[in-house]
């Protein structure tokens, strides 16, 4: 066995030339036999879902690995012609954007003038938002300008955001807003 051979060499090394070890190493004797130890791959039994990086606009392909309904890993998709598996540090951190203790998972509500948040049921919030939306829209809708031009719009409501959301959302959201007469619709894309 290799070790005993080396022990022998070592002993002679000790008793003869002081730098025998260095010399031995220089001669290229390997200091450990190659051994294989089976490793556990944490995504072996995961379901894989193709996705796209949520950060910049390059559109890197990513793969989401899911075990028991929980995301366990997100990495670059080697198949994508856009990035061929590459990611930048942000893309590589996408997993932590999803699985993150600081992420808020309940609806928070702050009443006018209140000094703290209070958790609320999602349905309650949706009803309340719809109610406020209708109220403000009905109060501020302008049908005609002073000079008699038909406008059917409200400038009392402003919708901001969209460059980070799906095409389907951008399309349907602007559709809903315009059907309500909201024209002040904006996102990060001011170019």
């Amino acid at each position, binding site marked *: 066995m290799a070790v005993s051979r080396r*022990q022998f060499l*070592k002993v002679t090394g000790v008793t003869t030339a*002081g730098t025998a*070890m260095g010399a031995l190493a220089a001669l290229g004797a390997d200091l450990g036999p190659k051994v294989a*130890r089976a490793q556990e791959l944490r995504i072996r039994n995961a379901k894989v879902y193709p996705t796209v990086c949520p950060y910049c606009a390059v559109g890197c392909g990513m793969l989401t690995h899911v075990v028991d309904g929980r995301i366990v890993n997100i990495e670059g998709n080697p198949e994508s012609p856009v990035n061929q598996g590459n990611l930048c540090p942000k893309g590589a951190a996408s997993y932590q954007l999803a699985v993150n203790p600081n992420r808020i998972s309940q609806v928070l509500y702050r009443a006018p003038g209140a000094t703290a948040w209070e958790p609320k049921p999602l349905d309650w919030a949706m009803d309340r938002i719809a109610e406020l939306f209708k109220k403000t829209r009905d109060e501020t809708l302008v049908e005609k300008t002073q000079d008699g031009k038909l406008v059917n719009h409200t400038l009392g409501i402003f919708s901001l955001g969209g460059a980070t959301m799906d095409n389907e959302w951008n399309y349907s959201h602007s559709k809903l807003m315009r059907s309500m007469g909201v024209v002040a619709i904006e996102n990060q894309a001011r170019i």
Partner: protein
Amino acid sequence: MIPRENLTHWDALVYVEMFLAGVAAGAYMTAAILELVGRGRSSVARTAHLIAFPLMLVCGLLLTVDLGRPERFWHMIVQSKTSLPMFKLWSPMSMGSWLVLVFPAFAFVSFLDALIAGRLFRIGGWRAESTLHGSPAGRIWAVIGGLLAFAVGSYSGILLSATNFPGWGDSAVLGALFVVTAVATGLGALLLGEAIRGQTSHPDIGDLARASVMVILWQLILIVVFVATLGPAGVRVFLAGSALVAIVGAALLGGLLPLLLLRFGAAAARPSMAALAGVLVLVGGFLLRYAVVIGPQQHG
């Protein structure tokens, strides 16, 4: 060798262990020499045997506690995956682990022998009148045990020099320095021990003093050699901060001062002097261990 960001965090537990192991090894080596010159049953030899074993027990404990995962201390002796013995002659840490296991076994027998010589108890034919040490078998025992003690006294220094850590890895003299310090502190402990036992008239005190003088001189020479063999980087890490203070302290308290006491202070005659000299040598040895272990790490 490049400057370090990652430290080994070998701190108090480690330099205390290295010091105590040195004392134990030094004392046992002294006893072995006595055995070889036919004084295996001298009070000094017995004292050495009474010291060595308990100290080594403490050392084993300190080393285990210092591990990141103490419950896995046995991985150093048995391969946890294959249950085969784990031994690397070319790894001072591996060798040291075995030494800390085997040497105490020998020291234990000598320890018992000393107790039996003191008529505290007997085990069959093994009695005060026929102790192991002082007998032909005792000589063989002392030789093997003495060699192990030598290894114990050397390996920690060699372990440090067998690294790429600036300061430690720069000199091949550390092992020699450590083993000689071990002998010096061993002698120091015996001086103290004998003095405490009040064997003032005892001629051995004189012998111990004479031996100490020579070993301390040798130790001082090695300290100089060690510093001389350090590269500029090595010198920088040692001759700074608390390490510098400790090294100078070791040279003065553990070197020059006891030299004067023993050479001109007629320590042989006055137990207080002998005791003081012993204490000083021990303090010096401890400071040296401290300096060598901490020096390179204080720049991390």
